[in-house]
């Protein structure tokens, strides 16, 4: 598939995530939308990885494991995402315990 398709797909998914962050009030949903953004990036990285793989295969001098960086990066993103989720959810739960809501509109003690 042409790389552009993946590019646009990823950008579209990313933007949907951004729209979600912008339009929702529920902290958990916002967080999910951020995860969606990360996944869009993951998809793009994998697609690029395969693109570079193909470029390298076409090149005269072969290099070891072309395009593998991208996939490893995706792996690390997933690792980070997992860590982030655990902390993020802990924070959301803590907040919920205190104010019994996860509506970000109620977060306005800090302003100006």
């Amino acid at each position: 598939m042409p790389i552009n398709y993946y590019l646009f797909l990823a950008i579209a998914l990313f933007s949907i995530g951004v729209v979600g962050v912008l339009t929702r009030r529920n902290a958990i949903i916002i967080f999910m939308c951020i995860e969606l953004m990360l996944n869009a990036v993951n998809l793009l990285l994998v697609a690029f990885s395969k693109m570079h793989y193909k470029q390298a295969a076409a090149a005269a001098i072969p290099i070891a494991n072309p395009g593998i960086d991208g996939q490893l990066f995706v792996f690390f993103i997933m690792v980070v995402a997992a860590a982030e989720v655990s902390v993020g959810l802990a924070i959301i739960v803590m907040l919920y315990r205190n104010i019994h809501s996860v509506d970000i509109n109620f977060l306005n003690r800090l302003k100006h």
Partner: protein
Amino acid sequence: MQSSFQLAFLIPLLPLIGFLINGLGRNQLSKQWSGLIGAGTIMGSFLVSLFIFQSVESGNTAVVSYFDFIRIEGLRIPFAFQIDALSSLFLLIITGIGFLIHVYSISYMHEESSSSFARYFSYLNLFVFSMLLLVLGSNYVVLFIGWEGVGLCSYLLIGFWFKNQVYTKAANKAFIMNRIGDLAFLLAIFWLIIKTGSASFQEVFEFVQGNQGTSKFTATDITVVSLLLFIGATGKSAQLPLYTWLPDAMAGPTPVSALIHAATMVTAGIYMIARSNIIYSLAPFTLTLISWVGLATALLAATIALRQYDIKKVLAYSTVSQLGFMFLALGSGAYVAAVFHVLTHAFFKALLFLGSGSVIHAMGGEQDIRKMGGLSGKLKITYVTFLIGCLAIAGLPPLSGFFSKDAILLSAFLHQPLQYGIALFTAFLTAFYMFRLLFLTFHGSFRGTAEQQAHLHESPALMTIPLIVLALLSVVGGWIGIPAVLMHEADWLGSFLAPVLSSSTHEVSHATEWMLMSLSVVGVLLTIGFAWFLFRNYRERESKGLLRFFEHKWYVDELYDRLIVKPIFYLGRLLKEWVEPRFIDALVNGVGKTVQLAGRQIRFLQSGQIGSYVLLMVLAMVTVLLVQFFIRK
């Protein structure tokens, strides 16, 4: 150099020492000592001056330099004295009359406390010091130092009785009006220094004569310098438009009025212009202006003097008027006549002032001539001397005033017959108001209180002796400048001053001269008679029309108040209350306020809402991306 000239430094130094002793020791010295020191130092100066005068008369002149007052790259102003005919003559007038007035003061001021007595003498000594500096200076800067110094002393002495705020106000007025002239004088000095590179008389005059009309010293330069110098002179010598301080200056003790505001300081302007006669001779326009200003001042002051009731005010306006005459002479190019009149005027005006002081003394401080009358009986010496003074100022031969005034009238006639006419009329006015004063004061019946009448007495000898001496001088003082038409080769003054002052070359026939003389003498006599007729028996009358206008001094003070003082005051108020706080300061504070206001507005961006934060961030990103990809490309 003549060895006597090496003593020249003593002339101003002695009064300075007197000033220091009296000033610093004012709480310790007794009145006798203060008076002795005050008068003694002046006496010393007078003797040295005489000594020097002798030497000058035998033809010696010199510039004695002491130290460099200012020495910088391209300019050197030495602290030096110039001893020549003009300065030595003035030295004699100043120290001589100064001495007499010091003596007079010892008695006149005896009621003061000893410390303020000493203060008085220290001021007086300082004045004499400054005045001597003024006439001795060999360059404009030293002259200016003395010039400002006499202004200062005048200020101090007018406000001598500083408890009275009317007096101190008069003192301020005197100083400030003098300063207006001083500014012009200073500018003239600067101009000369820039153009000629020097301030010393000799060098400046040589330069001006050598380079007049060239690009180094153009006709404009001459006009500017001469005009500025003249404006300076109008301040000090109380000419239009800066004369109003002089009548107010009568707030000071009467001897001060005699010394400063009649005999010496006010003639400084005449001295300065006479000193600069080489520049003026090249500036016909300025000369014409001077003659007209002098004439106008003479006439104006004379008319005002007609309707004044304060004995000292009459004399003050008469001084202004006489100074006008001197300027008329200067403007006509008759420098010698001007200096001559300075000399004679110094005699008779000092006499008149001291006489009035004697009257005031006798009247217990009363100065209003409406409350006097018939004093001739009680104050015999005062009366006689005062009469001599009046005759002298009226210009009756053979008293001194006749000769000097006649010289002036003659020069005016030669210069511009119209001016002569006005001047002659003014001379009649002079006689009229002087004799009005004399008659009101000494003749008729006494109009004061009974208490005053009981108190009336002739002044002590310390006061009357100076009167007598001055009266003598008033009589004989004119004989040093007898015109050729009366006595051949008797114009000693003219020949004495010839090396310093250029004289007009016009000759006039003896017949004309005789005619002019007799015209003035007859006119004056008639005027005196008219005054006798009017004021022999004084009746108080409401003044009307023009007379009222004169009585109110042409409303000049009011005019100045409206035109200058008040506008300046209101402008100051405007600046203080509007421009400064609401414009300049507001601009500065406005910047601070704007910062605060901006802060107040910008902080609303920080709404506390995650949604809006993200929105703003996304918008920023979109903007940057848009611009970068589609506009900046």
